[in-house]
């Protein structure tokens, strides 16, 4: 067992799969020579050569579009979009081609590929580097959206994503890329896409989150527990498709819920979760569900971004407003 950070777990997964599957290619901006601006792809060029590990022009369209072409041809591209704020140029490729080619061709062609991207705020990055638009991507039929929160999950889910028969958007919480280490097995292992993890069992209220926001959510849960509340905390891990059974079972137990995400509140994936809870477990609900989310504004530049991001006190207040409603 080795102690790894989340970004090291990404690197570990890439090394693991490139070593055993010649079809896997890794490319993007600054990923080869430099090893990626976050060093997620470090060492791959030396190990696997420049046919399989490449630096590309600064064009997200070219990166994602060409990955579709390689994937339908039989390769397994794992491409990096340097910051999630720059996924939008490639949105067209995700919508028109990556997510749709299987459906268009009745399964004759498919695009097994992974688009990795560090997402979210809190690292004092430049403007346009901190977006969290997972809800927009999750809305695309044919796409799978995975958002891990721990190093262990990251390796297992990234290996699953690379082996997945359809395109996966793999959004990495860059806020916690290096904030902590945990044990990550050296060997090959996978975690199922679409399965949530119960991070804390409790009886009083269900906290639902994913990615970087899991950490303030867990901190808030611990603080609330100190005050005598018993929250359950669920890490969705995959938001599309999400683990409806785990969410519903928890609501049936607690009767209350609070969703936490850093994406803007309106149209965020929290709305989809709440709609599903209403469909499946409305009569178990004792209180209205609360959302603690980013505001309906662009995420501010570095000076003000901490105002924007949910933090433990905001989450605690959100939970209390449910309890006290």
């Amino acid at each position, binding site marked *: 067992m080795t102690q790894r950070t989340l970004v090291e777990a990404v690197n570990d997964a890439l090394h693991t799969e490139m070593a055993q599957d010649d079809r896997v290619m890794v490319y993007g901006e600054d990923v080869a020579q430099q090893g990626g601006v976050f060093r997620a792809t470090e060492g791959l060029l030396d190990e696997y050569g420049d*046919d399989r590990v490449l630096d*590309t*022009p600064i*064009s997200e*369209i*070219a990166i*994602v*579009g*060409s*990955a*579709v*072409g*390689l*994937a*339908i*041809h*039989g*390769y397994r*591209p794992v491409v990096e979009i340097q910051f999630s704020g720059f996924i939008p*140029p490639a949105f*067209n*490729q995700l919508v*028109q*081609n990556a997510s749709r*080619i*299987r*459906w*268009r*061709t*009745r*399964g*004759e*062609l*498919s695009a097994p590929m992974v688009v990795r991207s560090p997402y979210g705020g809190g690292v004092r990055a430049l403007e346009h580097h901190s977006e969290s638009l997972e809800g927009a991507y999750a809305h695309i*039929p*044919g796409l*799978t959206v995975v958002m891990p929160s721990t190093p262990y999950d990251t390796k297992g889910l990234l290996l699953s994503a690379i082996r997945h*028969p*359809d395109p996966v958007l793999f959004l990495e919480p860059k806020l916690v890329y290096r904030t902590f280490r945990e044990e990550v097995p050296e060997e090959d292992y996978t975690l199922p896409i*679409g399965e949530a993890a119960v991070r804390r069992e409790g009886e009083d209220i269900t906290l639902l989150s994913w990615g970087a926001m899991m950490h303030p959510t867990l901190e808030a849960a611990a603080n609330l527990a100190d005050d005598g509340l018993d929250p359950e905390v669920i890490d969705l891990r995959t938001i599309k*498709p999400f683990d*409806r059974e785990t969410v519903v079972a928890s609501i049936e137990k607690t009767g209350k819920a609070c969703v936490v995400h850093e994406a803007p509140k309106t149209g965020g994936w929290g709305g989809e979760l709440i709609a599903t809870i209403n469909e499946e477990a409305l009569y178990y609900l004792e209180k209205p569900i609360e959302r603690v989310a980013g505001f309906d504004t662009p995420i501010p530049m570095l000076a003000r971004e901490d105002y924007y991001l949910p933090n433990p006190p905001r989450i605690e207040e959100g939970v209390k407003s449910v309890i006290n409603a």
Partner: protein
Amino acid sequence: MSEESVGAGRASLEECSFSQAEEAPPRYRLVQPDGSYDEAAIPDLDVETHRGLYRWMVMQQVVDERMVKLQRRGEMGTYASGRGQEASIVGFAGALADDDWIYPYGREAAAMLIKGMSLRDLLLYWRGVEDANRFPNANVLPIAIAIGTHVPVAVGKAWGMKLDGADAVMGAMFGEGHPSTGEVQAGMNFAGVLDVPAVFYCQNNLYSISCPFEDQTGAKSVAQKALAWGLDGIRVDGNDILAVYDATRRARERALAGTPVILESVTYRLEAHTTNDDPSRYRTDEEVEWWRRREPMSRYRSYLEAEGLWDGIDEESIREECHETFDAAKAAADDFDPGGIDELFKWVYEETPPEVQRQYEAFEAFLEARPDAYDHIEERPKR
């Protein structure tokens, strides 16, 4: 680093400038609109190749004519005719090798047929049935309806072919409007970096629906854009099939040798953009007439006649055969079983996620409970 690698230093602004040409660049042409030609310049093609090309041009015309008629009768969806572009379409696809691929954009029925698509499936496609995109035994990718989006994908496919060591090219087809998109620019730029075996085939028919070429770009040609992206550019008279054929073969060789090519075929669509379009709103009868006098079939025929190759061609019976082929394809399309409503749901992912499955089952149960819903559902177009 060296001085040469960043360009020599010169005390002349002119030498260090790129300027737009006053006139559009010339088009490679072998047979003049009046039918005259220089024997020595014509590529040496055997009789069968000539007859095959001519037959495909007739096929393009028959398919266009019949598709438009079916659309008028409500038996076909929107259709994009290639009338006027027969040489441009057939000359390109006819010059490709068997293992080459095309990525069509819609106005090139004969090219898809040449590359192995069945005519039945072409009918099904324009009838809006996704099953047409299976392309069994055809080196054809699904039509790029979303303008320009296929070009980066074509680059990726060509990249894969190169990595495999395949002796084949990717022929990405598009119109002169596509290069205005970011997708085309991003894709071609990347192609220039990767040196993939791709021929970017632009049928410049001078209009993107109603937008004339001079309003589409300030450039005098599409081919010249190749320089900016590190590619080669070739411009050809798209109404001269022998020029298109020869230019394609040579572009193909360059692409295989490591320089992707933009091949711009300058042509003219004599009919509407699609069956939903009224071209009289944006172009004059005089202009259409000017191009009608330069249409490609008669030019090729005059060459074949002059060479004594026409005697073996019975145009009437070729046309009749093409109609019979179309009749058979239409009958097969009419007989196609589109399957049940599960067809809507089952191809989104390899493994259908629970939510999609639930939606399918709920919808099926709903249709069973409320068969009157079928009063509001019509599979179009009529068959």
